[in-house]
């Protein structure tokens, strides 16, 4: 029994070592090859920063978190055993780092919010952007920067889990199984999570796609009022409270 487990893990190790060049690099890092570590940083740093930036919203924090991920990789190098693709392992660490960062951000926010009156809260950034742009030029098309900002704000309306799953799928081209491994969810749960995320994005961005207008200003011609939710962007978003439920 024990020998079969050892044989299996040896096979797995060999499989990933042969298939994934980044696993080979990481094994060199384990043997203290500095150049291999530099190569891994060069390959993944920008990708990590992108994920963190679009997930948490701040470039500077994204850079710090990417460094934190590499620090963890470097610390864990002597214990590294390839049991999945390197990117899966790396983004699992990144997911944990992002979750920690979000938790401390929420804690900080809770402290700041305490003592404030609720009347001091303004509308959501997306709603503000809608008001600002449509108030000035109701019919003009957005330029590239504004489009990026619109998409970014639409992303912000998603839940943390929807956003992370979406980013891993879009920017890393990961399969549902890989995303599930990283986020510790089943493949079916990821399928459901991504479906809701993309549905939410479509609902928010469709007005722009259809006629270049800011979301909320015009209704989608092909849908009835019953199908299309009210113009508040908050109500457009379907949250993933039940994200672990499976859709088959």
């Amino acid at each position, binding site marked *: 029994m024990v020998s079969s487990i050892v044989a299996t893990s040896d096979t797995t190790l060999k499989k990933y070592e042969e298939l994934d060049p980044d696993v080979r690099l990481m094994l060199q890092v384990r043997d203290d090859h500095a150049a291999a570590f530099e190569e891994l940083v060069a390959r993944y*740093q920008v990708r990590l920063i992108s994920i963190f930036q679009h997930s948490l919203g701040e470039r500077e924090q994204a850079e710090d978190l990417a460094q934190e991920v590499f620090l963890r990789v470097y610390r864990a190098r002597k214990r590294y055993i390839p049991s999945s693709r390197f990117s899966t392992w790396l983004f699992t660490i990144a997911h944990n780092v992002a979750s920690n960062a979000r938790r401390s951000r929420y804690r900080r926010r809770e402290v700041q919010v305490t003592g404030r009156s609720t009347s001091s809260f303004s509308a959501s950034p997306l709603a503000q952007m809608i008001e600002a742009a449509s108030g000035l030029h109701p019919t003009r098309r957005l330029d590239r920067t504004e489009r990026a900002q619109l998409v970014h704000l639409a992303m912000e309306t998603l839940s943390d889990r929807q956003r992370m799953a979406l980013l891993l799928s879009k920017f890393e081209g990961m399969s549902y199984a890989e995303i599930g491994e990283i986020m510790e969810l089943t493949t079916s749960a990821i399928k459901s999570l*991504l479906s809701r995320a993309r549905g939410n994005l479509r609902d928010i961005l469709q007005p722009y*796609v259809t006629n270049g207008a800011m979301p909320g200003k015009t209704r989608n011609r092909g849908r009835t009022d019953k199908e299309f939710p009210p113009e508040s962007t908050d109500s457009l978003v379907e949250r993933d409270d039940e994200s672990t439920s499976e859709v*088959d």
Partner: protein
Amino acid sequence: MSQEAENVNDSTRIEQAEMVAYLDGELDVQQVADVEKRLSEDSEYRVRLQQLQQAWDLLDELPRSKGDEQFTRSTVEIVVVKAREEAERRAWLPRLGGLLLVVGVSLAGYLLSWQLANRDNRQLIQDLPVIEKMSQYKQAESLEFLRMLVKEGVFETEGKDGL
């Protein structure tokens, strides 16, 4: 919400999940064939799929970070320096423990020897009056003779420490 409305919602969700999985290349051959058959027959279904794809394509508008060699090198340096500092801190812990142990043992040894040395001194101090008059005591023939002299008041002028 009525049971009927819930069923419609569930079926819409399942249908949307299938469409998204189709776009993501996550369906098996049979499921792909089913979706494509529906696409060819149902224009509304086709529109919904296009809308999902268009919203997905808009994500390309999000700015992508750009890296450079200098940035990579500085990250590597920061990580290696931090890791080394941590390793040094960790390496210091057993050393510090050993150092504290040595200091503790030395202190305990010093206190013990100080105690022992003082015990001898205390005895000497206690015996000092006798030691000072030892030459006189030696001239007496016996302890009984000295006690007799005490009784007769010979040492009274010299104080109680005289004997």
